[in-house]
């Protein structure tokens, strides 16, 4: 990793090689994991091919592709607002709620087998969590993304455009939910709990005929 350039230098080179690409450096929360490059959906393939072919980088191995579900967040912020109350204008601090939109993300970890360095982490974001969930697929660039993108499609619902064979891999084809999303509710098929209380007890009792545990 020492011989590799920093992410800022890499960003400059990417933007030089793929003009029009919007690359953003997303810092990661903890010191253990390095910051990642957020790519826009328009120029993803061009940037990916640059990363694979560039002589100094040669990132030829996508070791892991995973998905992240960012639900929409309600952010409460204190805003100073001018309010007129009874003819007198006052500046009052008001608590406003703002909703940051949610999105789904695919995160790629790239290593170089030729030059023995890495990882470089890429992020691809969808527009929202509901209907605009398409993202370009990087399987034509790195073959190892094939099954992993299928898994993300299965568990998160991100549709990868350009994927040669996009179908569910862990769940059966007739399944309709996406289990790794934050709002997934597992079906109730009775789970044994030794000493259930309250809500768990109510949920368990529904499985017994007559309502009482036999």
């Amino acid at each position: 990793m020492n011989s590799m350039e920093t992410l800022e230098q890499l960003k400059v080179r990417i933007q030089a090689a793929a003009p029009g690409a919007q690359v953003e450096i997303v810092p990661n929360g903890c010191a253990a994991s390095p910051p990642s490059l957020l790519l826009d959906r328009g120029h993803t393939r061009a940037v990916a091919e640059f990363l694979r072919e560039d002589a100094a980088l040669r990132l030829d191995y996508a070791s892991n592709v995973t998905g992240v579900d960012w639900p929409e967040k309600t952010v409460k912020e204190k805003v100073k607002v001018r309010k007129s109350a009874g003819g007198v204008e006052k500046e009052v601090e008001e608590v406003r709620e703002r909703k940051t939109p949610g999105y789904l993300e695919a995160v790629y970890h790239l290593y170089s087998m030729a030059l023995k360095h890495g990882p470089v982490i890429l992020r691809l974001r969808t527009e929202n969590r509901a209907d605009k969930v398409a993202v370009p697929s990087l399987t034509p660039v790195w073959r190892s993304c094939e099954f992993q993108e299928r898994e993300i499609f299965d568990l998160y619902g991100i549709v990868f455009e350009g994927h040669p064979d996009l179908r569910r891999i862990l769940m059966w084809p007739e399944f309709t939910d996406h289990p790794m999303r934050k709002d997934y509710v597992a079906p109730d098929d009775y789970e044994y709990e030794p000493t259930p209380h309250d809500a768990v007890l109510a949920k368990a009792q529904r499985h017994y005929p007559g309502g009482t545990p036999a």
Partner: protein
Amino acid sequence: MIDEGLRTELSRQGVVTTTLEELYNWGRKNSVWPLNFGLACCAIEMIATSMARFDIARFGAEVFRPSPRQADLMIVAGTVTKKMAPQVVRLYNQMPEPKYVIAMGVCAISGGPFKEGYNVLKGIDRYIPVDVHIPGCPPRPEALLQALMTLQDKIARQSLTGDKRPPHLKAEAPGECPIPAFGKHDLEPPNNPALWQPPPMMRTE
């Protein structure tokens, strides 16, 4: 049939007496052929049991059959996912009578450490009748041998005639279990009501 004291006395003199039932069960229990059915980590322990150190061959069970049509014991070793569950039931159905099932490991008994998973079936006894359960994660090979011995005792006690005879000798007991179908959110049905009821809760306070 014959007095136990007389029987031991005779056997000490070199005369062995037996009943037809005992002879039939003795032959069956000492040649139980398992089906090659390892799903997950418990399969490694099953393999270890069949190797030299723990040696399941002493019990006559070293021929693991690849085909369900030649097996009489199905050792469900490992986590049964909901995607795999219909296949497990179909293979159980394809086994000829008399057939036995050992649920090896906590995953096959109740879902195990992964029971809250979205794809984990909480125990294979929801769809097929299980004769012996082996707790453990994974159970040691000695535990699998203990389970095999328990199954052998169970086979030895089975009768050929009368009301207490096992279901495979009764014409009205079904030989096949219904295979669950893939639904939109879960398997349909989520369990087989004829075989599995929610266990009684011990304490509800």
